[in-house]
């Protein structure tokens, strides 16, 4: 039993109208990795913002006791001085600057009037080595991958002399390999005596690294689990998060009702080149069939070319020099634009719902009709009544939680945003839906509802292509799975035959060039 490094006592934080944190107690021992889990909006990030001084002392009730002293942080630099460093989910790096410049941004070496660049870069190199990066600190951020950028963030935190490191969803944009490397690095730091708090949705990671797990639900801490004294698995954690036992994370499809029929879409010898680096193949000779009433999973690590494949099929909205054949219901088509794809009853539900899925400043009503304005207008004039009815219909059908369809989409939670995005594409009345990471960043309950929607879609005889980097999800939801690696399909298997092990084996084999 280590010394208590941090204690947050009876923390209560209210926003106008909402109690975000209600009498939260939270203890972290020195030298442990403490995982903070909970559904979206449970209050994890709010708690960490209180701790790091983003919400200054006085805007919350309760005490923060760090290193035996009561702390009253007014701003982030106050907490950083004490060695509490938070790494936010969105990377806060300037792409056009070098690693070294980023690392000491706001904390420059040398004097105010003259930055000492030699010292900057030599120190930066030192910290880079500590996180296992071999890059020179003079390399620009935009020239390294997201995995390495995340490591730079950690190096940056080390440069601030971190004693308590808080990582908010550090692996949300990393692929499996990079995630594992990052978690191993955390374990390495733990050996050296660093204390860490990790916030994450990926429960397998929690089980892998955490010494203790604190579950937050509806603004209060529900329980703290000690991984050394009890047997903790993912189901146990989920039970704490949602407050009930989830017997089945993936709703079953009744195979006697959902019949898999004829081929709806077929992709032959599909090859796509990078739009800027024209000699780089992003999708390499892919062959795929999608049948009526079938959920086809495409599993691959980030950067495998999954999104690029989907977008190139969807009206050539990505890539250059696309070759290959696309057949929809047996007929060869040449889709030159997203509009042409929509007309062929194809829908692509984008991966990044905020970035390229929804217009956040507009209402649910406006977003729902955006891809099918013809359906709610005549001769270019919108029928507002009809548009409203459509939005309400889909809101009820998908059980979107909102006071009204006039609510701005930006105000909704991730899960509800995803539903609006699905509604938008369902309203185009597609036969084939490509869902790109449909459950990323949304909580367990909302995930289940999205899975149910997918099941409803195939029950209606539609085809669903689900792109995902979560193995359990791919295995749990698909009828058939394609495995993609470095632009190529390296395996295909039926869901019954698929296990996490043999899917990973597929990728590893392909990686060795076999």
């Amino acid at each position, binding site marked *: 039993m280590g010394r208590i490094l941090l204690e947050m006592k009876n923390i209560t934080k209210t926003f106008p109208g909402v109690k975000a944190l209600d009498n939260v107690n939270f203890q972290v021992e020195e030298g442990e990795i403490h995982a903070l889990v909970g559904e979206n909006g449970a209050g994890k990030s709010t708690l960490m913002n209180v701790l790091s001084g983003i919400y200054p002392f006085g805007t919350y009730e309760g005490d923060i006791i760090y290193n035996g002293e009561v702390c009253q942080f007014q701003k982030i630099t106050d907490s950083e001085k004490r060695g509490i460093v938070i790494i936010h989910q969105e990377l806060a790096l300037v792409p056009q600057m070098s690693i070294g410049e980023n690392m000491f941004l706001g904390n420059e070496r040398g004097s105010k009037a003259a930055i000492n660049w030699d010292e900057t870069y030599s120190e930066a190199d030192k910290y880079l080595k500590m996180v296992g990066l071999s890059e020179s600190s003079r390399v620009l951020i935009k020239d390294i991958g997201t995995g390495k950028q995340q490591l730079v963030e950690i190096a940056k935190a080390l440069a601030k002399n971190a004693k308590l490191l808080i990582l908010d969803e550090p692996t949300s944009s990393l692929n499996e390999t990079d995630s594992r490397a990052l978690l191993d690095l955390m374990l390495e730091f733990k050996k050296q005596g660093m204390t860490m708090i990790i916030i994450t949705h990926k429960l397998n990671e929690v089980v892998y690294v955490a010494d203790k797990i604190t579950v937050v639900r509806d603004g209060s801490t529900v329980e703290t689990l000690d991984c050394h004294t009890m047997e903790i698995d993912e189901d146990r954690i989920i039970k704490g998060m949602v407050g009930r036992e989830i017997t089945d994370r993936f709703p079953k499809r009744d195979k006697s009702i959902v019949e898999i029929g004829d081929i709806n879409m077929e992709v032959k010898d599909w090859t796509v080149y990078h739009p800027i680096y024209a000699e780089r193949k992003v999708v390499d000779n892919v062959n795929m069939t999608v049948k009526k009433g079938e959920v086809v999973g495409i599993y691959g690590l980030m950067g495998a070319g999954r999104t690029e494949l989907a977008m190139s099929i969807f009206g050539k909205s990505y890539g250059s020099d696309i070759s290959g054949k696309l057949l929809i219901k047996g007929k060869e088509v040449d889709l030159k*634009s997203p509009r042409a794809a929509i007309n062929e009853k194809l829908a692509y539900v*984008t991966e990044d719902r905020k970035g390229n899925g929804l*217009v956040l400043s507009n209402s649910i009503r406006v977003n729902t009709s*955006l891809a099918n304005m013809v359906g709610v207008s005549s001769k270019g004039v919108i029928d*507002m009544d009809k548009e409203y009815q459509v939005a309400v219909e889909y809101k009820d059908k998908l059980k979107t939680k909102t006071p009204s369809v006039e609510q701005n989409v930006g105000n909704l939670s991730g899960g509800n945003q995803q539903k609006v995005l699905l509604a938008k594409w369902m309203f*185009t009345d597609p036969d084939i839906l490509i869902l790109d990471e449909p459950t990323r960043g949304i909580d367990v309950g909302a995930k289940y509802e999205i899975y149910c929607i997918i099941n409803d879609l195939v029950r209606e005889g539609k085809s669903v292509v689900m792109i995902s980097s979560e193995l359990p999800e791919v295995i749990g939801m698909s009828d058939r799975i394609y495995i993609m690696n470095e632009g190529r399909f390296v395996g295909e298997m039926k869901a019954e035959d698929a296990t996490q092990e043999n899917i990973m084996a597929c990728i590893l084999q392909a990686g060795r060039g076999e």
Partner: protein
Amino acid sequence: MKLKLLEVLKKYTMVFALIAVIIFFYANTEGKILYPQNINNLISQNAYVFVLAAGMLLCILTGGNIDLAVGSVVCFVGGIGAVMMDKDINVWVAVAVMLIGGLLVGAWQGFWIAYVKVPPFIATLAGMYAFRGLANVVMKGFAIGVRNETFLNVFGGGSDCYVPDFFHGENLNITCMAVGVIFAIIYIAFIISKRMSARKKGYDIESLTSVVPKTVVICAAVIWIFYKLAQYNGIPAGLLWIAAVLIAYGYITSKTTVGRYLYAVGGNEKATRLSGIDSRKIYFFAYINMGLMAGLAGILTIARAANAQPTFGQGYEMDAIAACFIGGASAYGGEGGIFGVIIGAVLMGVINQGMSIMGMSANYQTIVKGLVVLVAIIFDVQSNKKKK
């Protein structure tokens, strides 16, 4: 209740600011600011601002994109028209050429911006120089008088540019008064029918406590303005053009699919493109429209001055942009509306005129204008911050 009042204040900040400014000038000009003649002048002097700002709004909606060339285009188009009329070419041919000229300029700039992806700021900066130069070439550097009676009457120049009073009222222009009242009645009828259909279909309806004051205020303002105009010479011709433009653009932005796409492109271009909408066409549409409005503004400008000069239109682009931003259009695109543009343009006009009546030098007027724009944007930024 207190919270609600605050919400109303926030939603209509600029309306209240406008009222405050009017009260200020009313007190400091011994009420001169509200003399019928001054209200008449406010409208005719600022006709170009309303017209250009309506066009500019579409550009700004697509993502905070502006058109710096409009001032030069106004001058260029006006120059062409003046030269044509000087050579006794049919007035309607000249008008058509001016409008088409504006449209072509818009197409030229729109092409570079939409299809070649030249940043709008730079594309229109280039246009600002080039069309100013062309205007000089067309007019050979001299002012050209416009004497065509029909042209001046229709587009609000000279002394007779009012809608005639068909009823020959003595001290009050009855036609003008009637138009004001009819307008208010149509507006009320429109609101009532909308509410009734919404209730029938079971939609959420705005509460009476918010609809009634809003309707009363709008109708009272309209009737009052027409009453003032009726005390002077009646409806200025320029007002007809302003009304036509504002109604048309109000309709386009709120009721049509094209209008919806303008907002969507400004809100999230990628999402819009992946929804099967050709965003290039939307940018192109916005700039072609801007060109058309610049053409119309050119017509109104040379009609009002009864001549065309190579220096015309300088700073017009800034007035239009300022009116949009003061009226609450977002500098990042996707937010704003015609109602805001009207408030923004009127606010600037009132400030200009109020200071002129008070006898302040034009130099100070420019300073105040600049500060007003800044304050408006600060409001916008602050209220956006609170939303998050």
